[in-house]
């Protein structure tokens, strides 16, 4: 074919064949760009050609945990002083970041990613970010943790606010995003920012400044499309107004009894993810463009008991246009909430439902409200309290399952009577069902289950029943 055109790679000594050298510099750098900076720099001793390649990669990605030398550990072991080792490591890491930035030959910086555990001196960050801003950094990812919990969180330095070219911003850990509203030059102003992830960040704690900071955050990002935030403590009233937002993910990490109110004005939303204790989440209007929603929510017998029904009803009103819904209602109070679906989910094509011993009625009701459902995935974790499990065949069945359901999956099958009734019901109703897959809980015998389930009458003539 093109043998003559190809460079003949003659084997070196020991029959070693060079596989990589016929790639041009740009492609070698492209490969290096997928490596953390530590690995990228290590390639400098592969051969003379590789010596300076790493300096051409427009990326800095360093993790203070991976920076270690046997010298450091040996010295520390001799001294038997952990503090000294931490300090030494901190100084060394700061030096490495500064020298990498200084040695990079590429003008622009695509990505600046730092995972940094530090104890006492956060001042280097200002200089580093100043360099990043000057080199028009596009993606900034800071994952910062302090050794000492008593020390105040790291405040974002002035140079952070001058990174005006950012497209992606990810902040996580002990970072303070309380913005000083009295200093305009320290305002959140990122005209190109599309993606913003705030993970485990303590949102402004001062109730009075809350509205200011949160609002100012988003008003400074006119083209924001993707917002994600997780927090340990969410208390108070928050307003989120982002007309360009397409993806929103919000999760609350810790079970607590605090109350929050979240008002969301994001009419262009296509993807919504919520994990946490259910409270008052208000959408400005029904989400017409919603494609995918994931709701994993906890309701308990607590002081908010009376409000749950209203909150869920309101949430589902906004989500009713969704095509793909994943719903995991956890907690003890769901079966007391009653019928929570304000209208039918006309566009719902796939439903992933996590069933527990307390929420079967939610599944039943939902199936009666999804006229165009094509795929149903039900997953169950091991049931400890088997008495509550109850599947009841609906009295006035709207016969929705017969027209569109083509795929059914049930995970965590234990052979309980109600489970069998449920599977029987699906097989009986779904006229165009193509595949029904039952995943058996590990102690059960697949063959027995298959034998039993195969006896159930199937309305669909083309249905394939599988047990795994």
């Amino acid at each position: 074919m093109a043998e003559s055109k190809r460079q003949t790679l003659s084997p070196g000594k020991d029959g070693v064949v060079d596989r990589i050298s016929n790639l041009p510099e740009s492609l070698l750098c492209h490969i290096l760009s997928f490596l953390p900076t530590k690995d990228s720099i290590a390639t400098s001793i592969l051969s003379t050609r590789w010596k300076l390649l790493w300096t051409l990669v427009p990326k800095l990605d360093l993790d203070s945990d991976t920076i270690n030398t046997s010298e450091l550990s040996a010295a520390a072991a001799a001294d038997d002083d952990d503090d000294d080792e931490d300090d030494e490591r901190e100084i060394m890491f700061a030096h490495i970041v500064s020298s990498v930035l200084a040695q990079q030959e590429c003008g622009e910086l695509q990505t600046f990613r730092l995972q940094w555990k530090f104890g006492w001196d956060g001042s280097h960050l200002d200089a580093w970010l100043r360099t990043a801003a000057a080199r028009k950094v596009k993606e900034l990812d800071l994952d910062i943790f302090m050794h000492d919990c008593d020390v105040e969180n790291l405040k974002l330095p002035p140079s952070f606010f001058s990174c005006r070219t950012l497209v992606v911003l990810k902040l996580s850990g002990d970072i303070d995003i309380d913005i000083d509203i009295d200093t305009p030059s320290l305002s959140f102003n990122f005209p190109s920012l599309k993606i913003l992830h705030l993970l485990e960040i303590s949102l402004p704690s001062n109730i009075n400044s809350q509205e200011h900071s949160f609002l100012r955050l988003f008003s400074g990002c006119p083209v924001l499309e993707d917002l994600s935030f997780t927090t340990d403590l969410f208390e108070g009233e928050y307003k989120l107004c982002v007309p360009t937002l397409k993806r929103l993910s919000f999760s609350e990490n810790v079970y607590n009894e605090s109350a929050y109110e979240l008002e969301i004005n994001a009419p262009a939303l296509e993807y919504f993810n919520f994990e946490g204790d259910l409270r008052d989440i208000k959408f400005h209007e029904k989400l017409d463009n919603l494609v995918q929603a994931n709701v994993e929510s906890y309701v308990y017998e607590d002081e908010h008991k009376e409000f749950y029904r209203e909150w869920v009803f309101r949430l589902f009103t906004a989500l009713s246009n969704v095509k793909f819904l994943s719903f995991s209602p956890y907690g003890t109070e769901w079966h007391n909430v009653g019928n929570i679906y304000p209208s039918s989910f006309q566009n719902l094509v796939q439903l992933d439902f996590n069933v527990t011993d307390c929420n079967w009625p939610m599944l039943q009701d939902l199936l009666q409200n999804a006229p165009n459902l094509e795929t149903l995935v039900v997953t169950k974790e091991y049931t400890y309290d088997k008495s509550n499990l109850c599947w009841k065949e609906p009295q006035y069945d709207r016969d929705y399952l017969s027209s569109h359901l083509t795929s059914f999956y049930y995970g965590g099958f234990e052979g309980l009577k109600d489970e069998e009734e449920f599977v029987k019901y699906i097989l009986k109703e779904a006229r165009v069902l193509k595949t029904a897959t039952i995943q058996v809980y590990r102690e059960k015998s697949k063959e027995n289950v298959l034998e039993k389930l195969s006896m159930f009458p199937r309305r669909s003539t083309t249905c394939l029943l599988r047990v795994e």
Partner: protein
Amino acid sequence: MKFCAVKQYFDDENNNNITSGASTTMIPLPNVESHPLAILITYCKKHLKIKANNADNKKETEKEMEQYEQELLKKVMPQELTELILAANYLNFKEALDFFCRAVASAIQNKSIEFVRKFFGLESDFELGEEEKLREEFAWSFEGVDED
């Protein structure tokens, strides 16, 4: 169209008013070997098929694509990766280019220099002492790698 270089060819053809009526046009690709091209075509078709199957469901698309990519990597020999990267680059097929470059990067990540040299088939051509100097300067980058 994913193969941007090929698209360019079609655009040029139309501009020159050459008959583009034939459904099978011969497009010269002198810089691409047939074997990597076959793999790239399969990759492209699979990608489009998965996307079509899953309509708007981005999560499913990503999941299926990842599964397919894992399977594909098992069948591709390390020496073929360079060919694939060159081919994808020539054809301006960004997704495949990124995928195969990432595969090479994963293969050498956190590995010792000896391993990487062997993997690439490279030999050190440094002057005496030069390599030692580099090792000292960047000592921290050589620590903590996997056992060979």
